[in-house]
């Protein structure tokens, strides 16, 4: 096995920021708003770096798709311990319509090009909450997938993944190469230390466009409208159970 792990990192609006919808309801405001690495992507990077520290794999490559600013996200991954980065440049309208299908095509192409042993992604992004990219990437590559991973370990030439599912925990063993998506409890991402932040300056980030990978990123989706969730309306207090029942039947609910 190549010992190379590809980690996808997405630049998203920071989770602590108050989201505002644009006046034309086309999308949310992103200009001048604080962005950071998707928290699940941080967990994915941490897992890959830990594997390298345990000498289970040899190289961690951080990948991000987007405009120039995506490089900041890659640098954060480098400061956490990734060895090099790949920035797939997508700007303007194409960037706005970039979604899981396009990203998984890019990740699949890169996984083949880099002869990756593993592709680790966050289970979902906190901006669109799609939870599709990992699964689609595995399908495009025809690779096994271990999604919602809360524990990952190597067992010989297979990989054991403990998955968080609705009913509890499910343990599977899959062949490599494989795609893994990181869930919240997989690990606690390390702080990028200042020495590592300075070292990251010297690490390489390769630039390329989706066309260089032979990937068509036209979107199959069109966003019609973005609205804020409806404001929570005030409730009504009632004195007796009879009042409650009559109010409910007035509202046609009983």
């Amino acid at each position, binding site marked *: 096995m190549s010992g190379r792990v590809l980690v996808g990192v997405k630049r998203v609006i920071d*989770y*602590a*920021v*108050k*989201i*505002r*919808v644009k*006046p034309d309801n086309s999308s949310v*405001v992103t*200009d*001048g*708003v*604080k*962005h*950071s690495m998707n*928290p699940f992507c941080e967990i994915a990077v941490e897992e890959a770096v830990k594997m390298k520290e345990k000498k289970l794999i040899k190289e961690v490559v951080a990948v991000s798709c987007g405009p120039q*600013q995506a490089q*900041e996200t890659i*640098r*954060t991954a480098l*400061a956490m311990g990734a060895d090099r980065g790949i920035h797939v440049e997508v700007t303007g309208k194409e960037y706005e319509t970039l979604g899981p299908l396009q990203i998984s095509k890019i990740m699949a192409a890169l996984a083949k090009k880099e002869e990756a042993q593993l592709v680790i992604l966050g289970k979902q992004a*906190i901006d669109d*909450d799609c939870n599709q990219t990992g699964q689609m990437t595995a399908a495009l590559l025809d690779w096994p997938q271990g999604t919602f991973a809360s524990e990952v370990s190597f067992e010989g030439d297979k990989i054991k993944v403990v998955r968080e599912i609705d009913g509890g925990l499910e343990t599977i063993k899959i062949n490599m190469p494989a795609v893994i998506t990181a869930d*919240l409890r997989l690990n*606690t991402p390390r*702080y*990028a*230390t*200042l*020495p590592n*932040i*300075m070292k*990251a*300056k010297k690490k390489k980030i390769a630039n390329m466009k989706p066309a260089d990978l032979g990937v068509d990123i036209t979107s199959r989706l069109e966003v019609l409208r973005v609205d*804020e*969730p409806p404001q929570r309306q005030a409730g009504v207090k009632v004195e007796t159970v009879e009042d409650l029942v009559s109010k409910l039947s007035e509202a046609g609910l009983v």
Partner: protein
Amino acid sequence: MALRKGALRCNMLVNSRHFYKLTSFVGVRSVSDKVSSKPVTSGDPETLGDHLIYTQEHFALKESLRKIIDQEINPHVDQWEAEGKFPAHKIFKILGNAGFLGVSKPVEYGGLGLDFSYSVAVSEELGNIRCGGIPMAIGVQSDMATPALARFGSAELKKEFLLPSIMGDKVACLGVSEVGAGSDVSSIKTKAVREGDEYVINGGKMWTTNGTQADWICLLANTSDGPPHRNKSLFCLPMNLPGVHIARKIDKLGMWSSDTAELFFDDVRVPCKNIIGQEGMGFTYQMLQFQEERLWAVANILTMMDNIIQETIQYTRQRKVFKQSVLHHQSVHFRLAELQTEVELLRSLLHRATALYIKGNDVTRLASMAKLKGGRLAREVGDSCLQFWGGMGFTSDVLVSRFYRDSRLMSIGAGADEVMLGIICKYMDTLPKN
């Protein structure tokens, strides 16, 4: 009920960073009430290429430090403020591991050897801690008790005291001020008398930040009878030496989470090799770092002022008085605009002074001006904002009251306003002759 909830909601919005403990991300997102206005970004612009002194690495440093603050420090600030002490060893070790205590210190001793702009970036980010005491304590460790040692100490001394301080294994404190001498450093009374290959120290120190937890003290003492600016020396003194007494933890108006000690030295014997650099040069050594100390303090308070103004906007937006938001009254939003304008002016001065300093210029005049303005502006911001918070501002449930108390120190400590004014007048050549 409503105003308390509003204030607590603000507190929570700004404070909660416990996402690692949350089971799901759904429901954490908050959506704004207003569709129209562009979000306010205070401080650094997103477009890195345009910043006066900061590079990508500065911003990466700030982001990483912010995570540490949000996860390891801020969740416990209220408790530590109530207890009157924060666990310095624990926090310094976390910061030391991440490399934040030795930003400008020599690489041979675990530092990063970076220029002062990185220290300013660290200080600015530390302003996001929800009290003044802890950043102050960190500042003493990284930029007050250690610079002279780093520059002039012997290799042996640096190995014993500097290295562990940068790693976060040893807590340092600075012993300069005394009960009878604060602004007038030259009139300190603590004496270090040479006896063979030891110095015997007698005297006391006051206002010693970290004093009840420190492993060593950087002590300024009189070592001869010469002229007051040339008869003092700096020592690295382990705090566990016989004769070192922590007389009391001082009960202060603010900065509660920072333990401040009054110390006594009773025939304390310290080896001669513990002197930093040359005998008689102590005063000069301490003075050399004043520019950095003062700019560091300004960087810190700027972020705090930004945060207070932002929290005040959030609170007054949702708090209604006479059927309107408090914020919508012109006297309120206009005043906040005035305050923010002055904050930006001070920020410009800080960055200008830092830019000049890292190129090797002497910025004593600008640093003194910045320190003077910082202390005074913080009092104005605290006072005006507290007024806008109304009754809630007067409670201990909100940050503005803590900021009001904590920031009052800035006009007094690390160079009182009057001292700053004297320095500026010296440069303006307006002081009476002789």
